[in-house]
């Protein structure tokens, strides 16, 4: 940065550009496609959303100014409130579970051993299935009478009950089971998180673990005093990412599998609410306002976790 400011005269004298300038030009050139994408695919739509949120807009007639009416209406909208609550609860439950599951599997599968390769592949596989197909698959899995999950739960039981004499979960018709089902669905798509954690675990120095072995640290001690703190920055980053993504990856399951139900709105998350409001009821201004709330929620989640990480990072200047 300083070079260009410091030597304008020299540059005028020499036609050859300094390597610094060239490097920066190359950088700019390489960043251009990304920046175009960022502006075109993220910034502009975000601004459009912002603009739309203060209008009444049905896509069909020109938008009319609505000021903050949409936001005021959101506050009063019971469906929106349920959707908001559902989304927050989902994030609070699913994100830690996903990260913990991925961590557990990464710690289990980071060593070389027979079958580990297969197990890793199996862990990754659900992530590779296209979302809609994944949803349809679970629709079958969750089928309350004929689905394999409940068939399995009924093994050994009589009259459609489990061995313990209880009704198996009514995945698609009971609100709690349906919410649990959506979380269950989301758990199996933590493949990406798993891969990152696997790489992070494998990058940890081996001798530190040998050191611990010589000091006779138990598995729990090793996990608590070494692995967890060493992986904490990665874990925190993944949790932030997952929390942000959780607002999105509730959409397809709720859309394909539960259709926002069981009634009235057990699995209507913000993403589905936005979709229905916008595309099914043609209330684009209102949907944009809800989208903005979603964005703010995302920003808030990121900020909170960012602060937590910063507090934690003080401990480690590696």
């Amino acid at each position, binding site marked *: 940065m300083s070079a260009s400011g410091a030597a304008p005269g020299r540059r005028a004298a020499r036609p050859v550009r300094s390597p610094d300038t060239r490097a920066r030009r190359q950088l700019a050139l390489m960043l251009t496609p990304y920046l175009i994408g960022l502006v075109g695919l993220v910034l502009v739509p975000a601004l459009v959303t912002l603009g739309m949120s203060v209008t009444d807009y049905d896509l069909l007639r020109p938008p009319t100014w609505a000021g903050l009416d949409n936001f005021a209406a959101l506050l009063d909208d019971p469906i929106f409130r349920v959707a908001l609550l559902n989304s927050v609860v989902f994030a609070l439950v699913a994100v830690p579970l996903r990260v913990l599951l991925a961590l557990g599997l990464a710690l289990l599968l980071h060593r070389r051993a027979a079958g580990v390769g297969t197990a890793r592949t199996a862990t990754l596989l659900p992530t590779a299935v296209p979302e809609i197909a994944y949803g349809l698959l679970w629709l079958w899995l969750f089928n*309350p009478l004929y689905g394999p999950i409940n068939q399995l739960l009924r093994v050994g039981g009589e009259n459609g009950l489990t061995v313990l004499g209880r009704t198996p979960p009514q995945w698609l018709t009971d609100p709690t089971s349906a919410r649990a089902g959506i979380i269950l669905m989301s758990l199996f798509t933590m493949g990406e998180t798993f891969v990152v954690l696997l790489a992070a675990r494998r990058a940890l120095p081996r001798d530190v673990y040998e050191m611990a072995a010589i000091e006779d640290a138990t598995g729990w001690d090793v996990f608590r005093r070494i692995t967890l703190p060493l992986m904490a920055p990665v874990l925190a980053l993944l949790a932030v990412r997952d929390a942000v993504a959780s607002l999105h990856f509730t959409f397809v399951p709720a859309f394909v599998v539960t259709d926002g139900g*069981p009634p009235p709105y057990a699995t209507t998350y913000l993403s589905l609410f936005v979709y229905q409001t916008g595309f099914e009821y*043609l209330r684009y201004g209102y949907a944009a306002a809800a989208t903005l709330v979603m964005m703010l929620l995302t920003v808030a989640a990121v900020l909170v976790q960012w602060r937590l990480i910063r507090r934690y990072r003080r401990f480690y200047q590696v």
Partner: protein
Amino acid sequence: MTIVRIRSLSALALSTMLALTGCGSGGGLSSGDPVKLLVFGAPEELGAYRTLIEAYQQARSGERIQLIEASDRKDLLARLATSVAGGAPPDLFLMNYRFYGQFAAKGVVEPLDERIAGSSVLDPADYYPVAMEAFRWDDAQLCLPQNVSSLAVYYNRTLFTEYGVPEPTAGWTWNDLVTTATLMTRDDRGLVIKGTEAEGAARLPAVHGLGVEPSIIRLAPLVWSKGGEIVDNPERPTRLTLDSPAARDALRNLIDLRQAYGVVPSDAEVEAEDDESRFLNGRLAMLMTSRRATTNFRTITGFEWDVAPLPVYRQPVGVLHSDAYCMTRGSRNKDAAWRFMEYAMSEEGQRIIAATGRTVPSHMEVSRSPAFLDPDQPPRNSQVFLDAIPTVRALPTVSTWPEIEDLSYGILENAMHRGDKLDDVIRELDAKSRPMFARGENG
């Protein structure tokens, strides 16, 4: 968030594309672009439309129709809205009158009165007025109904014969329906069983007496038949009026089918196998649904089936089911689109689509012809649909009706399957639907 982005972007992209092609092509090239027709439906229904289109293209060389298939009703709405916003709408779309209000109110649909008046093929008097009327908005005919259907009770004759239960007949009452359904709910040994015991213990019914979805369109004719009303003012509705004694009774009786008699499959059973599949698989004795199901049921080979009219409380009343061809105001191929509309609505077109079983033709003459009443094609008793026409009433076409239907479906489903308190159900329906009515526009 992503979805909104993608959709608004695709709209953006569409409009860009449109601007480009628009500049190049100018206007009036009917032979160049095919007429785009947006529909949704089950595979059998889509097959029916393809048959119609093929016949049209064969009859009129040079005309081309492109069928655009949406995956379901909601997808169709979303596609229509985004393509209209993007400036590249389909030329025609097929839509139920219950859902066209929002498009009618927003000036998306091209009024057809002038074209009808100038047509040598179409005479509005040939069609059932109740269907034509449903697609009038602000005194303009916006769409042309291809069918005039109503609710009927499909039943599995073979099962009735097997269990020796009398088949439903015209003029049967709600009590008859309950009795019949109770008698037809059987376990796997063929014994009459009470379906309410299914949860918790005992045996599950192998055959259920009746399938009926807890929706406002199923409830409406029952309320009307009892002398009640669904909304306060059918022309300009402001609220649901299920709190009237007649409506309340009808609703309670509907809910009791599950809660008291257990003749209707439980919600888990419906999730596991929807009513139409259940009927197809011979595990449902009766199914209350519209003519739409016929194409699907004609694939049945394992048993004999037929239709009966709706049961009656005080007077026979049906509810209108009707889909119409609508032309978008933004279409750039209106003349060609109109020619297809004329064909589809003509006797010939109506005959072709009627033969597929999909519709009760809106063309009166065709509806009385063998094309519809063909005794060799099930259901034998298609006359039931025609007999119902004089009694059918239409639901409101307020622009927010889709929202109101979705809302009420959730609440009614819980009422039927979870047994929510009737007063709470009615109150919740009213409270939550009022703002939707308030936001709505009427024709």
